[in-house]
């Protein structure tokens, strides 16, 4: 868990500036990373992150489990990013089932707990074990947040239409490596 709640009996509607600034310090960076990884440019990603904070303000009176706030923020950031990205015609894959529903704390995505630098270092250690083209492709996307599919295609000498499917296959291989050997870092 990224954010430690000191007293779980304290409802979030009593959050003050100090508690909120702790939340911001803890989650703003990961939320930004999620918005950017969803394919947004810098301006749209800023809007997605701020939108998620505003959604939390909208919903704070309904929050019953403060331990879920991090997952909720990350889930909401991704939803906002997909919504804004779809408007902007971004090219990254996205197939959310319901973009317009109001997110609730009943359904934060538990997999958001991996949005963490430590977990990222574990992933990097597995990337080096991948064969080509996966090793190069995942590095390109991870180290060049604004890279476009056309640039990746030109760099790797593959058709533009193959970039998305190849990237997904490589991510799946990375997940398989991690599942086979989850503890080694």
């Amino acid at each position, binding site marked *: 868990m990224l954010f430690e709640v000191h007293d779980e009996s304290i409802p979030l*509607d009593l*959050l003050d*500036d100090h508690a909120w*600034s702790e939340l*911001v310090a803890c989650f*703003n*960076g*990961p*939320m*930004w*990373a*999620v918005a*950017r*990884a*969803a394919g947004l440019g810098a301006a749209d990603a*800023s*809007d997605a*992150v*701020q*939108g998620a*904070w*505003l959604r939390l*303000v*909208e919903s*704070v*009176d309904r929050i019953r489990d403060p331990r879920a706030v991090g997952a909720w923020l990350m889930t909401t950031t*991704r939803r906002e990013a997909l*919504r*804004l990205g779809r*408007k*902007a015609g971004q090219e990254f*894959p*996205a*197939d959310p*089932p319901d*973009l*317009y529903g*109001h997110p609730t704390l009943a359904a934060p*995505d538990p*997999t*958001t707990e*991996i*949005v*963490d*630098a430590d*977990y*990222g270092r574990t*992933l*990097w250690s597995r*990337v080096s074990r991948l064969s080509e083209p996966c090793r190069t492709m*995942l590095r390109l*996307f*991870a*180290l*060049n*947040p604004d890279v476009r599919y056309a640039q990746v295609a030109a760099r790797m000498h593959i058709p533009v239409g193959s970039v998305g499917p190849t990237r*997904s296959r490589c*991510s799946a291989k*990375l*997940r398989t490596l991690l599942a086979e050997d989850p503890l080694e870092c």
Partner: protein
Amino acid sequence: MSADDAALETYMLAAMRLAAQADPAPGRLAADAMAALAMRLPGCVVAAPADLTAASGARAGGKPQMHRFAADDTTLDVETTITEGRLEIAGQVSPPPAPDAYVEVRTPHVTKVRVPSPDGQFAVAGLPPGWVSVAYHRPSDPPVVTRWLRVRA
């Protein structure tokens, strides 16, 4: 690729970038997040979009965009327009407001107050594009606030 796989792929890429410090968040982002807390109205009633597709945070593209929000027996119609890079809001509250009612048109950095006309109309110009919400303050009932709406050119 399933929706779950797409989400996981996004979170993995985000984690790798965090580890590599490849794309740090801009400094102003924290100030924006802090500003969000100041937008809270304790005890307010959140008005949901009555037309979900229209209220999806569309880019205005120079044309007015209509959004309807509803809560309890109150309806707020909000028309957004981007003119020369600034956001204009024209709206109407229904039913017609009580004499002491007022409307706040809020962005995370600028809030403007208007007293609606007897038939409920109000207008604000010169706001920064981005996230906007309308708060309708009623003398005898909790304020009604629209869900946040993103408006860009």
